[in-house]
């Protein structure tokens, strides 16, 4: 039997979740700069630096690009790109527009747009696996789409965690709002995974095939975790609502039992 001290030392193996560890660092530094930014005093000498700082210049440029894309000559292109699929000429435009929308959105709207993006990638994936194109190109498109989907899953989680720190109530509302979308995406992904596995069944195992299978498996897992987290948050709200609704009934019941006790006295 191991000595108690040796057993205690085994607790060193407990480590934080690497995703949380990395994400929390970004959130912490963001919070710190927000707080220190509020504290710093305004100075006319800092004005040119402020205007041309990346934090100001970047959103301005991005907004200008969106305005150009939406109202300028790019409007038709953007519309045409809407139904494009990975591998299509206009697909990068579709991704760029989505990306820009997410970048310039408020912290509350961000998770909703990210969830839309997850939904879009999941739908695209279904279309790709159901199409009868060149198998090599199809595999490439699947990998590309799954990678993009996973980035958005991680970003959604990071955005939610960021709101959770500053405005917990809004975070819960947002989680509730996007829960169904993520569940739908998870379903679409699982179907695409099954379809893909079916397609690979008769084929010789290849490195590319294994990569696709592993990638989609990881994406399904990540999306399922996010979906279950959101479902939990949603059911939490429902329980709270139920408690709120039953509160008046409970009060009546309590009053009734008090008067009943008084009668017994």
């Amino acid at each position: 039997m191991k000595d108690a001290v040796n057993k205690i030392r085994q607790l060193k193996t407990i480590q934080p979740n690497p995703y949380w560890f990395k994400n929390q660092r970004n959130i912490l530094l963001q919070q710190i700069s927000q707080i220190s930014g509020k504290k710093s005093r305004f100075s006319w000498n800092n004005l040119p630096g402020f205007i041309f700082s990346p934090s100001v210049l970047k959103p301005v440029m991005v907004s200008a690009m969106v305005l150009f894309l939406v109202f300028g000559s790019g409007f038709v292109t953007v519309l045409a790109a809407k139904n494009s699929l990975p591998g299509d000429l206009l697909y990068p435009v579709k991704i760029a527009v989505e990306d820009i929308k997410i970048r310039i959105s408020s912290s509350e709207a961000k998770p909703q747009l990210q969830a839309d993006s997850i939904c879009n990638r999941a739908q695209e994936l279904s279309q790709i696996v159901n199409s009868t194109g060149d198998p090599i190109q199809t595999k490439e498109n699947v990998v590309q789409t799954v990678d993009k989907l996973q980035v958005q899953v991680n970003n959604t989680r990071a955005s939610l965690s960021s709101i959770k720190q500053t405005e917990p109530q809004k975070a819960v509302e947002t989680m509730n709002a996007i829960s169904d979308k993520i569940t739908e995406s998870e379903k679409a992904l699982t179907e695409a995974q099954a379809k893909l596995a079916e397609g690979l069944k008769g084929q010789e195992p290849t490195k590319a095939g294994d990569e696709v299978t592993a990638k989609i498996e990881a994406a399904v897992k990540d999306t399922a975790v996010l979906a279950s987290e959101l479902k939990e948050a949603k059911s939490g709200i429902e329980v709270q609502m139920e408690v709120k609704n039953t509160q008046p009934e409970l009060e009546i019941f309590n009053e009734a039992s008090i008067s009943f006790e008084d009668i017994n006295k």
Partner: protein
Amino acid sequence: MLVLDREKDILKRIKKGDNEAFGELYDFYAPKIYRFIRLRVNSQETAQDLASEAFLKTWQYLQEQRKIRERFQALLYKIVRNLIIDFYRAKSVREILIEDNFEEFSDLEDGETSDKIVILKDEIEEVKRAMLQIIPAYQDIVIWYYIDELSISEISEILDKNEGTIRVLIHRATKAIRRVMEV
């Protein structure tokens, strides 16, 4: 121990508004702080929330002070201890850790057999249950001395007690946890 060697310099940079310097301290201390909290509360989520709060509070404290007299580690652990005390005070009931599901064993070596992992997990659960049965002050001592491997002088700095008292506390805490584990 590079971060520890440069700690004074890092603290000066933080005072000058270099936020990335605080990130360096976070990288070094966050795993230890998380583990310390995780062993004192019953959920991963609570441990994550308290660890985040601890770092933010520590940064705020550093901004408010003109001169930092103590080492960063001591300051951080003092803030963490207060947060844990506040957490339990707010809950009013001591949490029961038996139902806890420990999933954070990223340090387990690759290639370790599943049987070995199961045994390790069981042993870790056993220690956690034993920890619950000793007083919180002894729990802190056990974690700092045996898991974080802090020196007696480092623990004395956190607790503002002399080294003789810390030696006595280590002796008593070890005796207490051994007694519970050997039952």
